[in-house]
């Protein structure tokens, strides 16, 4: 408690103490027991690994490890393979995936792979390829299709970029894409973007380089890419080997039984969740894009009790994939004292 108007010189009296360092050091101190903040072991049996994220915040997880998830793609040899999207992409010679991407974001954005030339690359110009996805169920842009999302990108492009190819529908690898090119004149960097839609996600390939010839050759290489039948600008709604994807399917219209999750901690993060509903109307797979462990546990316990009306296509029940946002948007349902079930008419 003081006003700040009167200040004393630094502690002259305490300087006496400084002269006694050699005398006093160690006196009166007992070595604390090992544990907590203390240890007398200067050669521990093991050391924490470096370059590892051990303490995670909200993170991606899934109810099983068998069902593919968007972030589960891998580079094997020189092929990027993503079972969730049914995507196989052969990398250019001497290009590698140097780093893993960040986890999916709570707005539904995925860095699937970042590809760039290895140090052994002999080419004259360098470049990079970002393969990314955005979940159209959760995009903050409110875009409902790949084309809308690319147009959003164009509208929000900063003024010092120049658009060299407005979003245009093109065909590569037997599928329709939107292509969008722009350049930063000051940097001399060019961006060529190819985007399509798969399982209600925008999937995009962003090529960046100073060399437009290199970019064009990389773009043409995408013709070798393998994609699922559904991939396309006006398609991309699942089906075939994948479930059909339907926005806001977890609504009263389709639900037969709904149990609210009990979330014990009051947090404020968005918790985007994708679920796959089997042909009997049960939730067979849950994918948390971003959730704390206690959130994923509570939500999983609830979702496994939900029941949907079977979704029929051509008279036959098919699996459905949809998205639900828990947590911040929409506001969570206040947790009841115990789990309750509610039955929706119909």
């Amino acid at each position, binding site marked *: *408690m*003081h*006003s*700040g*108007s009167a*200040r004393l010189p*630094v502690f002259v009296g*305490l300087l*006496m103490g*400084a002269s*006694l360092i050699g005398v*006093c*050091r*160690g006196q*009166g*101190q*007992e070595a604390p027991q090992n*544990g*907590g*903040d*203390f240890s*007398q*072991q200067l050669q*521990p*049996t093991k*050391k*924490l690994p*470096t*370059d590892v*994220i*051990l*303490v*995670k*915040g*909200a993170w991606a997880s899934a109810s099983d490890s068998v069902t593919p998830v968007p972030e589960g793609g891998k580079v094997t040899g020189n092929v990027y393979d993503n079972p969730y999207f049914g995507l196989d992409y052969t990398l250019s010679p001497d290009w590698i995936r140097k*780093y893993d991407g*960040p*986890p999916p974001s709570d707005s539904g*954005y995925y860095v699937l792979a*970042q590809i760039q030339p290895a140090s052994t690359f002999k080419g004259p110009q360098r*470049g*990079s390829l*970002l393969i*990314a996805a955005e979940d159209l169920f959760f995009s*903050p*842009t409110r875009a409902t299709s790949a084309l809308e999302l*690319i147009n*959003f990108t164009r509208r*929000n492009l900063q003024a*010092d970029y120049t658009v060299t190819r407005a979003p245009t529908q093109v065909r590569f690898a037997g599928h329709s894409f939107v292509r969008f090119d722009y350049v930063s004149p*000051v*940097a001399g*960097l060019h961006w060529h973007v190819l985007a399509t839609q798969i399982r209600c996600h925008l999937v995009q390939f962003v090529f*960046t380089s100073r060399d437009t010839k290199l970019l064009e050759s990389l773009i043409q290489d995408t013709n070798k890419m393998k994609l699922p039948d559904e991939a396309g600008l006006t398609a991309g709604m699942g089906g075939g080997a994948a479930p059909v994807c339907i926005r806001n399917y977890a609504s009263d219209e389709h639900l037969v039984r709904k149990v609210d999750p009990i979330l014990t901690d*009051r947090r*404020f*993060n*968005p918790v985007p969740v994708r679920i796959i509903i089997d042909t009997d109307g049960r939730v067979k797979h849950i994918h948390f894009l*971003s959730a704390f462990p206690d959130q994923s546990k509570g939500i999983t316990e609830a979702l496994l009790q939900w029941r949907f009306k079977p979704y029929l296509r051509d008279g036959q029940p098919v699996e459905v994939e949809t998205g639900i946002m828990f947590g*911040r948007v929409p506001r969570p349902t206040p947790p009841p004292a115990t789990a309750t079930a509610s039955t929706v008419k119909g």
Partner: protein
Amino acid sequence: MATRLQPAVLSAAILMVSATGVAFAQTDPGVRPGAINGQPAATPLVPLPLASVSANNPTGVVDFFNNGLGRFQDSEAISGGANNGLGPRFNFNQCSGCHSQPTVGGTGGPNNPQFTAIANGIAGPNDTTPAFITAHGPTREARFPFFFNNDGSANTNAPNGGVETLFTVSGLTLANGCTLAQPSFAAAAAAGNLIFRIPTPVFGAGLLENIDDSTLIAVQTAAAGNGLGISGTFNHNGNDGTIARFGWKAQNKSLLLFAGEAYNVEMGISNELFQQDRPLPGEDQLGSGLPANCLNLTGTGYPEDTTNFVNTSGTAGTTVANATILSDIEAFAQFMRLLAPPVQSTTTPGGAASISNGLALFTAVGCSTCHTPTIQSTQPSNITPSLGSVAVSAFSDLEIHHMGTGLADNVSQGGAGGDQFRTAPLWGLGQRIFFLHDGRTTDLNAAIDAHASSGSEANQVEANFDALSASQRQDVLNFLRSL
């Protein structure tokens, strides 16, 4: 007393920084010489307030600024002085000792006052200066991501992450026989269980405090679809759910909370927000707390910092006197809130053309996706006109982003995980010495390089930066040092 930056020391710092940049084709120009914070009237001990504060609008506000500035520089004592309550554990005894570069309110200076804390009788003679505190290294606080196992290894099932205060009062005359052991820093280092944080500068902090959440969310939305691999989120205040924005992980909601926590954690002074003397995280966990003879060392009871119910200076009823009624943490918060942001140099280093080009390149490669150059605008202010309805050129989106394995410190704060950090505001960067959350480098090149690692949102931007020519990268560095 805090050691202030002198011109000779500044030159040495510049040389040191330049020497570390030789591995890169472009060179960090080093700490920008010239006017402090780009403000000719600022001095090493007197930073400038916002324009409306200088104009004393509203009447009396400048007295509150000056009062806070004075208290920010006070040296705290254990007891018996004008400013009491230090300890029993602490990192230093004066706000401005650590927030000194390039003037009061900044970050760590070239001479670390923690290095001489024992010799100067601030810390107890029984203490040992930890090996990571060096004469000219970064001013630091230390944390152990995990508690120890009995064998000295880190117990990864027991996350810690709290501040392990460097010093104690043990052996000092005024310590009243209080004897405490310092945390086991050497053992923590041996176990790889030791991380650091350096002081965040607070220039312009009142502007950051006064940005409405909706504005920040709009900035976040506009950056969606960026094609750069970036998608940040916010840390939220646990009480009301609004966006928190101060500290390395945006864990603190307001400047008052920031001040109250620092007073308690960094200096061991209980206050009206944090009413108890703070034990180490482990002492608390083990149920022992602080020894009885280490409590209430002032002899006045708790909290040690309180509202002054009677003004202690000036004529009653004047604004000079009114300012003395505040508690220290309120005065600190007002000082930080009313501080002017740094002013960018248009010519130094490298000349106007290079700086201008550097900004354009900074935007072109994608740095500005997170380091948002300007946020439009603050809320109307009920404190002083300069805080209200103005643009904030802090070069930050105030979001937290995944920064990958290379920068992860494995400390969780609020909603931020071990690899998530707030986009550090870059205003004033031109006159900072140490970079990144732990002050690991004095070289901007190394700081930029550290943005790339597995799990980082910045990898694509880093690749774009690397794709620039050496001359272009130099322009970016010149631009950054102009801030």
